[in-house]
């Protein structure tokens, strides 16, 4: 598998660490209700098909990425910087 890191270019997946579901919503730190925290920590999207997921370019630029990858074929259709993706989500009120 190869991931096109926006900084480093097309690199082998062995340079990256996986970070799981990128659509789970991390509650605001001030959130005191355990429910959203439980959902965030334990419940993940696990689709057969396109999956938005975090990858960390550990042996490269050390940026966290949001990769869209099909879990049935391993084909990657999109890669974005996690920082940008998360900012966009936060400015849209937590949901995309």
């Amino acid at each position: 598998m190869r991931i096109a890191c926006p900084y480093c270019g097309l690199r082998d997946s062995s340079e990256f660490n996986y970070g799981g579901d990128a659509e789970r919503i991390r509650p605001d730190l001030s959130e005191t209700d355990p429910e959203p925290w439980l959902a965030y920590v334990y419940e993940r999207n696990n689709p057969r098909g396109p999956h938005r997921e975090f990858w960390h370019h550990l042996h490269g630029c050390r940026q966290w990425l949001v990769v869209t990858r099909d879990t049935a074929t391993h084909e990657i259709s999109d890669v974005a910087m996690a920082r940008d993706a998360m900012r966009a989500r936060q400015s849209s009120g937590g949901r995309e």
Partner: protein
Amino acid sequence: MSGQSNRLAAGGRIDRVRQVGFRFDGKAYQGYAGDTLASALLANGVKLVGRSFKYHRPRGMLSAGVEEPTGLVTVRSGGRQEPNVPAPMAELYDGLVSRSQNAWPSPSFDILAINNLFKPFLSAGFYYKTFMGPTRKSWMLFEPFIRKAAGLGVAATAPDPDRYEKVNAFTDVLVIGSGPAGLSAALAAGRAGARVILAEQMPGLGGALLDEPAGNPSDLWLKAVVAELESLPNVRLMPRTTVFGQFDGGTFGLVERVADHKAEPDSHEPRQRYIVLRASRVVIAAGAIERPIPFGNNDRPGVMLAGAVRSYLNRYAVIAGRKAVVFTSNDSAYRAAFDLKAAGAQVTVVDARPLDAAAIKRIESKGVQVHAGHAVAEAVGGKAVSGAVVAPFDIATGRCTGGFTRLACDLIAVSGGWDPQLHLATHKGGARPAWNETLHCLVPAGEGAIEHHAGAMRGSFGSAAAVAQGFAAGTEAAQKAGATGSSGSAPISDDLPSGELGQGFAAVFDVPPPHGLREQKRFIDLQNDVSASDVKLAHLEGYVSVEHLKRYTTLGMATEQGKTSNVIALAQMAKLRGLDIPQVGTTGWRPPYTPVALATLAGHETDNHVKPVRRTPFHAWNEKAGCVFLDTGLWKRAWYFPQGSEDVNAAYRRETKAVRETVGVVDVSTLGKIDVQGPDAAEFLNRVYVNGWKNLEVGKARYGIMLREDGFIFDDGTTSRLAEDHYFLTTTTAEAAKVMSHLEWLLQTAWPDLKVHVTSVTDQWGGVAVAGPNARKLLADCVADIDMSNDAFPFMGVRVGSGHGSVPLRIHRISFSGELAYEVFTPSGYGSALMDLLMAKGKAHGLVLYGVEALGALRIEKGHVAGNEIDGRTTLEDLGLAKMASTKKPYVGSVLRNRPAMQSEDRQRLVGLRPVDRKARIRPGMILQPHGGPHQGHGLGHVTSTTYSPQLGHSIALGLCKGGMSNEGQVIDAVFPLQGDVVPVEIVSPHFFDHEGKRLHG
């Protein structure tokens, strides 16, 4: 050459000038350079090369390639001994030593051939039905015998002396196969300017063209195309290279057999090279493999694939038989028949198809007899074929229709059609292959995203079509890979072989015996001894899905993975079930295409290179001081510094005592170190640690604890504030990498607006702890510009300065040992300079070196928790650290740590333990159980860390125990049932020594 009775006087593609000597089963033979072991054995008249897996039946060569199921031998010896080598794939070299397998004492007289008599009992799945009684563990009695009888060759017994290499490579177009299709594809892509790698598993380029008689006009075509390819700098031709797998993202696994054709690799060479190739496009032109036809005793040495017979004849000038019966269901076998005839053999063709008169005339005009509408029903002979039983055959019913006759022969050449090599095209899943009703074979259902298919692998069995398809595929592949040059025109030529009879393909997947002929085994998977009767039995018992059939009978599970057997079994099962072949389904192929040596995939990362070694900046220095190292993750940590004949126990007790009495220095460089900078750094730390960080002054350090998102303890460490916006964060050795990733994760995904940057500086800074009553005096002698006095540099203070000799220093006054102590960090390059300085000044202060064993003893005496306690399952409450957690702010894990079960008083919590009998030893790994028993189940908890305390003069321990310190003073038992040890222990405070902490403030 004497002995090479089956070698023709002329012809072939061998080098007759270079004679090569080799051995098989102890006997010396001669062959030529360019031979394979198989061709050389056949040249010498050796047809019987081993015994089969289950029935120990005599077996010879079936094929001339990677599909070889039976001609498996062990080659070389000692550390280079290699079992299960297909003889057709072993290139001959002078001095090659080979042995038969699965035969004792020899293939021609094999004791276990007695199994053949029991074959009715050894039917598919028989072991599932028996070996069960009389006891519950009966299988254990039978298994050793079965295991010994099974298996093929014997693995090497000495270490492999050869080297292996791994290479990463990139290309625009990968071409797999060098037949007419592959060569044309490479030519088209190469001319267009694409970077091309062409991989060919055999030693020579040309694929099926090399099966043509040497000197055939097709040699001219081949020579011209290869010459042009060699002239293109962007094309790399790689013979002896197998593409064994297709993986995601255009990744391919290749094995280049660099030196297997030599006695041993040259000094600069690896034996094999593992290449991870990333290609934009791939042209799969892997050809096709001939399919046999099952008939009675079709496993006898001398029953061979027709194409292989032709291959031995035209590549190696070896005639596999002088009196041949060629049994076929398609036109291709006639090439073998005609070439055999031309080489002087007597040839009779048995063709299952009814042939038209013109075809028969054409065949007979070549001096070849033909029985159209007939089949070979049985091979006659024991250790070699001596005849063929032939009967009229009806293709529609798949049955023999009349009386049989016997033809004398010493070779039966078979062709049941051709199976395209779909292996690599199915590795990535996708559409299952489709059944072609005309060709009676599976063809690709479509091309994968980056794939182009050409030639026989997609069912185009003629050379001209292969060239056209290959060229078109290569052109398109190059374009899609971004090449812009012109491919010119395809190298179509009249020199290419042609001349089919035009009689089409017939489907013959089984020849049951004609009436009156006793039924014999009709083998499908010749290596695993799976026959038509096994398929029938599987059907009878309901193992009818393809996967059940394979698994129940072991069909297709052999070293060649069913290359010559899968389709036949599929067809037989379809017939038994009354279904069409596509309805039965097919199973996909799994990598590797052909077996790959494990050493090759391991590459150079082996033995002591299996994982990298991490050394601290003080490593060399420690080594010189006689240090014994301890593996901790990838690190080599200083464990202890023995003096004289000291073992670890003696050494750490001495080292511990010295730290308590004078001063010691220990290498703590393996701690994770993270540089945290930015205007929001304080806010960031405040969020990741459970305790508060906003009020930490510049020049001060603080101990902090991080939780995981789920509220359990993640890590701890000391972090100092070097400037308003600059912190130096330390982590434990074990969790350093994870903490770093976690911090980056939070900054980039949770709080992208915080202005903070984190950088791992673990390898950039070395660190030592200087601990003991004389620590201040020692450091005062070492530093140039730091006031070390207690007032100027109080506990938890941080100072930046330098030591004598301009050694840059970052000093934290913190203590893990409980003594007056400092952690002194210096840039890695100054490691030796710092140690030299400390040692030079240390003599006067009684300085000793200590290691992590003593460090552990010191921290246990103080009740400081470490990795044994922070084990990923403990909470702040468990370790008595809850009071550190701020109630004024949220932090990572602050909500979920309050889940009910995590706050339960029932949990096991940190305690100190000391033996009631002070001479007794609390051992690591002990379990805490009620005093006096019963000792059963998980008990009260467990011992986490133990040491002998030189200060107290007895064994002490930390543990996790139900009820924690509320049971202080109680006696419980620490037990070690593995060795029958029970030690009554008293629950005491985990702070065994200097409870008030006077020493560290001293």
